[in-house]
């Protein structure tokens, strides 16, 4: 417990977290501090490219084995199943939330937040804890399946949303998935040699860019919170804090069954615990336009994301170390 607290304390005082807090405070105080949209998108492309490439290079170095395939498969299954848990939990905690809204939210929690993943792997690296490079591929694989579950949940009642070919393309060829997997593949093919060539761009300044990106995310989250009054009830908040713990538990189980290292288990927990803020919201606007974006964006970005970032990750790290013997 002590260890968790000290870890959480150290984490809270890292530049990465403080930058998020700065952005959040600025937005809540209604400062006009903002990043241009193009810069925010550019940083997001950079982070996806860097994390994908490094994951691939790490697989090239340590070799891929059957566990890569197994882990990806398990990730896909988790992404399919977690929305059901999320749906039930949200419906029981917040009775005011409609079935469609609950389905849309559920889709977010089955999918993953890549920046939470990035923050967690940065923290692991800082502590010298290694993890399986292919966890990046697991992350990419978990982005989309939850969308299918969410649509199934929303249409059980028969309102008839079906996944058109366009929606499939929207889901599967989503820019962030393509970039993450593409960079992973390039990293894998070119290996350590390729990584060495571009390390001065994607390794050394990585943490600094992450800080600036989280500053921007803090601003966006704060703006969301300011506009979301009315949508966010106590039950909704409770869901936003409990669901990550549910997800993390399932993730821990999955990671242990897969025989991952302590670092790998941590990341599996983080993936299961985090909620999408890029791929799923876009798909939901197309497929479930009646679901309220203020609800799912605020939950994912302004409640669950900060929770994971500040308290969740150190907690998952401690639990994973205890269970997998870091």
């Amino acid at each position, binding site marked *: 417990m002590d260890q968790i607290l000290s870890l959480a304390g150290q984490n809270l005082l890292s530049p990465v977290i403080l930058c998020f807090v700065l952005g959040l405070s600025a937005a809540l105080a209604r400062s006009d501090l*903002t*990043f*241009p*949209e193009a810069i*925010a*998108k550019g940083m*997001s492309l950079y982070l996806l490219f860097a994390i994908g490439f490094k994951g691939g290079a790490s697989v090239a170095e340590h070799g891929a084995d059957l566990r890569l395939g197994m882990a990806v498969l398990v990730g896909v299954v988790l992404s399919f199943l977690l929305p059901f848990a999320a749906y039930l939990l949200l419906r029981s905690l917040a009775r005011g939330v409609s079935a469609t809204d609950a389905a849309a939210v559920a889709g977010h929690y089955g999918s993953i937040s890549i920046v939470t993943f990035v923050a967690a792997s940065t923290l692991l690296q800082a502590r010298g804890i290694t993890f399986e490079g292919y966890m990046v591929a697991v992350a990419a694989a978990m982005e989309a399946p939850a969308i299918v579950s969410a649509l199934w949940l929303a249409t059980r009642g028969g309102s008839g949303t079906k996944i058109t070919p*366009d929606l499939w393309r929207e889901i599967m060829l989503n820019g962030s998935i393509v970039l993450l997997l593409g960079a992973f593949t390039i990293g894998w093919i070119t290996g350590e040699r390729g990584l060495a060539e571009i390390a001065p761009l994607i390794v050394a300044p990585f943490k600094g860019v992450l800080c600036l990106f989280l500053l*921007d995310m803090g*601003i*966006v989250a704060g*703006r969301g919170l300011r*506009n979301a009054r009315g949508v966010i009830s106590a039950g909704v908040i409770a869901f936003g804090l409990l669901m990550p713990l549910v997800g993390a538990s399932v993730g821990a189980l999955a990671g242990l069954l897969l025989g991952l290292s302590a670092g790998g288990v941590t990341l599996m927990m983080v993936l299961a615990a985090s909620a999408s*803020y*890029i791929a799923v*919201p*876009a798909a*939901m*606007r*197309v497929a479930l*336009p*009646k679901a*309220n*974006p*203020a609800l799912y*964006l605020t939950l994912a970005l302004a409640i669950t994301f900060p929770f994971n970032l500040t308290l969740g990750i150190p907690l998952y790290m401690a639990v994973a170390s205890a269970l997998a013997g870091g």
Partner: protein
Amino acid sequence: MKMHEAKRVEIMIEAIMESQVTRSLAAAGVTGFTILPVLGGSGRSGQWTREGSVSRASGMIAVICLVAPTRLDALLEAIFPVLDDHIGVVSVTDTQILRAERF
């Protein structure tokens, strides 16, 4: 200078619906349009801005079509289903165009 009657249709719709809108327009035989970026706005679903955002879920575009009056109905019928349930507003203004042979 010789001018011709036309309609200026302005469709403000979620950015994520861009490809659906343009496909519907093409299906209705409307191949001329221009897309303007939108910075932010306000409506029944509150106020929003693109600044700092990386999400494709929020944000709008403005699609502007100049069409011959006779093709207006086909255009509106084509995009109506796309608008349905989606955030968006459509306005139609009488206008005059140069070089009508292009429309």
